[in-house]
């Protein structure tokens, strides 16, 4: 999985989301600033951070951040895991066409491991739950193509 983690990987998801606005329209508005944190492990040398902004039915921004920039990016929620766990989720989505029962965002993050969903303000983290179908669909776009 050479394309992950990279800005390009997230840009592909972004493009597919924006091309599929009917699908996302049916799920409802989105409104959040997110950070996807990929932790260094055997497969990755240094932590990587990617910022994303979701507005209405679009992902309007994808960028890579330095660790020192994350706080200033002011994310509502941060989804964080080791690189291998991210890769396993993505591989599963690609193999199954969408996340299977063991690889949904909620399941992966519920107990705080292997993924962790967090932020400075619980009520802003709650936006992740409130709009979860859209964020799941965003990652499920990894399957296409």
């Amino acid at each position, binding site marked *: 999985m050479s394309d992950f983690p990279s800005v390009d990987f997230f840009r592909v998801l972004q493009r597919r989301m924006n091309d599929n606005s009917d699908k996302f*329209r*049916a799920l*409802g*508005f989105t409104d959040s600033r997110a950070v996807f944190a990929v932790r260094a492990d055997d497969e990755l040398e240094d932590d990587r951070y990617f910022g994303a902004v979701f507005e209405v039915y679009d992902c309007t921004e994808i960028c890579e951040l330095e660790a020192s920039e994350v706080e200033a990016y002011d994310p509502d929620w941060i989804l964080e895991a080791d690189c291998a766990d991210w890769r396993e989720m993505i591989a599963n989505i690609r193999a199954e066409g969408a996340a299977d029962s063991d690889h949904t965002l909620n399941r992966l993050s519920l107990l705080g491991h292997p993924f962790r969903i967090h932020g400075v303000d619980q009520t802003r983290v709650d936006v992740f739950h409130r709009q979860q179908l859209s964020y799941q669909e965003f990652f499920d776009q990894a399957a296409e193509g």
Partner: protein
Amino acid sequence: MSEKRERLRTLEMPRLRPRPLPPREEVVANQSRHFQTVKLSRGELGHWFHTPLDGGEWSEWGKRARPDAVGMTYMAVTEVCDRPVPEVQAYRRLMHSRFVKPSPRVPENLEERLAPKWGGAREIEEKYEVWIDDAGPLAEEALDRQWRPALSLRWEDMQRLPPPLERAFDQILTWLLQCEYFCSDAVGGYVGRLHYRFVEIKSYLAYEIFDYALHANALRKRLLSNGGGMGAQVEGFDAGLLEVCNEASQGFSGEVPRDFNAVVLAIDVWLNGVMLDLLRLAAAGARSEFDRRLLERVMQDCARHVSWGCKRIGCYLRDAPPEREAAERLHAVADRFEPAQVEGHLLNPRVLEPLALLLGGGPENAAAGWSVLREFWPQIGERWLARLDAVGLNRRDRCQVPTQPPF
């Protein structure tokens, strides 16, 4: 504002006074001693896992409903369900699934503490007071026809109107908004008073309340975005209905029966019927497709509310025991509100004048609008009577809504 004047009477909302609590250590100790904690600590599975699937406390093991053409409807479920209709005598519970057998481990003498008759979902527990024959399909339709404004309203198609027409249209929407809130307030209090074995009806009413809010939300947006604004409050549109609803609920206080069906007659059959008729007029006078579509959406929902009301009243008349004197009670309710409604609502200048302006196409052509109104006006009473005929309440020689317009 020294005298407190609540519109729809409800229970007092008292200020609560904190009272002393036991020390934390004591609570924690009690919690760890609690029989459920002790039980969970054993790590074993309890009664729910061991009761026989057949003949025990479990119900209907092995049932597999299959979705029909629409999806997993109530109808698909009742196909396989042993108890599709709540025939059984009401059980003494406030929050309970009718498909679940009441626990034999709750002693009878404690049931009343668990679920007192007054103040909650046992107040209205007779089937004849609540149920209708097609409860499942009704709840399904309410859901299926719910509009999703993000998909069904195209705000960018909204068109500017000449100011006099915008003003007339806004006045009608302002009236409609008031009706939406009034309906929601009048019906809302009953949801929590209906017994839980009528889940389809509770469900339906929740959707009805949602419809009113969705309308109010969309109407407010339309009013504030097209060059006009909120119009003038219509006083008297709820004349007679307010009194009937307050009498029926008795403020939801005290241990007295509430008359749910009086409210259904007043709000769903009458008021929604009037809204439906006047909206047809407004839609006929609407100058842009967007405006017409918006009203048509609201009309469709009003028509559903009317149809629920008619079914409910029909079943009530058919199923209520004779000593209830259902027909006479309903007549008495209608006797109360009809004259007040004609005067305060059907002849209200803030309702009729804007309609006439819209129908005539502008102030210079008001006479044409008034002649449409004159022609249409008797239909309001006629349709009301026709609906009542259909459900078995003949009011033709009693009705106070004139068959000819007095203007």
